[in-house]
């Protein structure tokens, strides 16, 4: 019966969608370099770097994100650090994700078989070149699917930032509900919006996966072959010893 008012307030909800997407994008953008830094730190031959990275990872993984948000927004000002709600939200979510994702990065980098590194040593290749041109192109395609996972999780994780007064999607939905009292409609719409966003994001990740594979020089299966019903040829290794 209040269905009409839900659609009237759709533009208001869309404002929340923009904020949600903004925080998701910024937090993931922060998480990416953080995860690489932490992963490389943990793999470093320099012990203090390993300890430091390990401490940061355990700190963010081991404490509640809600409490971290409160700290960033309500406690840091006592130490003279004033963050805007957006900055606090992005910082906490980004560092959180960066800590979790650093383990994915580390595992992917370690998954490159020893023979590749040995070849690089035997060819006297500079260390940075080895990382950039040999390790990374082989490790990156492995990281993309879990990164997509993390991005979709982040999308829903952003609801947490409503605790520091950010008017993202779920915050605005809550306001509408308490003012208009139309829970079922509004949360139905919000559910649909989150779902649409997540699906859109998954498609983006799929495209990113193909782009990364192409950049890394991996074979990308053409779309037509992927959708055809023709049985694909047996993998080559099936005939090898």
């Amino acid at each position, binding site marked *: 019966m209040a269905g009409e008012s839900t659609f009237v307030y759709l533009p208001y909800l869309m404002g929340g969608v923009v904020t949600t997407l903004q925080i998701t994008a910024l937090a993931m953008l922060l998480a990416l370099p953080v995860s690489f830094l932490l992963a490389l730190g943990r793999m470093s031959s320099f012990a203090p770097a390993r300890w430091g990275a390990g401490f940061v990872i355990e700190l963010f993984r081991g404490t509640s994100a809600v409490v971290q948000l409160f700290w960033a927004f309500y406690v840091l000002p006592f130490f003279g650090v004033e963050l805007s709600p957006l900055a606090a939200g992005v910082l906490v979510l980004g560092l959180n994700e960066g800590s979790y994702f650093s383990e994915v990065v580390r595992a992917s980098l370690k998954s490159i078989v020893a*023979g590749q590194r040995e*070849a690089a040593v*035997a*060819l*006297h290749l500079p260390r940075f070149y080895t990382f950039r041109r040999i390790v990374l192109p*082989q490790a990156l395609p492995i990281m993309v699917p879990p990164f997509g996972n993390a991005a979709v999780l982040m999308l829903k994780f952003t609801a947490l930032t409503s605790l520091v007064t950010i008017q993202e999607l779920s915050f605005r939905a809550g306001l509408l509900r308490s003012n208009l009292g139309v829970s079922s409609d509004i949360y139905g719409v919000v559910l649909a919006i989150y779902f649409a966003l997540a699906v859109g994001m998954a498609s983006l990740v799929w495209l990113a996966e193909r782009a990364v594979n192409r950049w890394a*020089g991996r*074979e990308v299966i053409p779309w037509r072959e992927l959708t055809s019903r023709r049985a694909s040829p047996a993998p080559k290794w099936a005939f090898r*010893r």
Partner: protein
Amino acid sequence: MGIVDRSEPMKATASQGRPIVRMRGVRKAFGPRVILEGLDLDVGAGEKVALIGPSGSGKTTILRLLIGLTEPDAGTIEIDGQYLWHSSRGGTLERADEAHARQVRRCVGMVFQQFNLFPHMTALQNVHEPMEQVLRLKRPEAKERARALLARVGLGEHVDKRPSQLSGGQQQRVAIARSLGLQPKLMLFDEVTSALDPELVGEVLGVLRELAHETDMTMLIVTHEIRFAADIADRVLVFDAGRVVEDGSPEIVLKDPSHPRTRQFLRAILER
């Protein structure tokens, strides 16, 4: 340019016949397993040496020591007159750092049993990129030389293929071209045909044979292909349990071995 600087002392040492490899009292253990103990080994510049012996006898470890993939627990390794892990200051040896070792082992190349090509690069990229990085060549020149090398190992038509599109024998030939691109004075071949299907072994051995006959590069070849070893090597070393039990020309070592272990090993391998 870097290559010109390096080539000067090379000629001098080669003409003096100074050993390009000199190992003294080398020990290497992995945990409680002692692989090499008190190993002394000299290899003269230009020599083609076949290393044979049962698996686990330390042959591969010697190659890995020479290219710096592992460090010896004790003893010294000299490559082309320079200590690999030490620097001599006023007659006393001091432990040298990684950078020193990198510079000394620059003239060594290695080809692996499992090829270890970079799977995301074409055959050409596998060869020309290391040349750019290490020899500091400009890309067009590196590519041109890489093409010539690939043609020389019979892969002129396959330069733009990825390793996954090549047979094992072709991959191994790319790996050989990749190492040759860096103009090593000492090449190490670690069972380079052991991972190949039997019908592909010949094409790789053919490349090795050609290298042995047509270059004055020093070659250390770990192999189980006894007849091949007898054919191209100037010298055969038989290893057993981390020691050289036989050292001499292929005629003497393979036809008339003095050590009972060698006889046993040769019989086992020839009766395959």
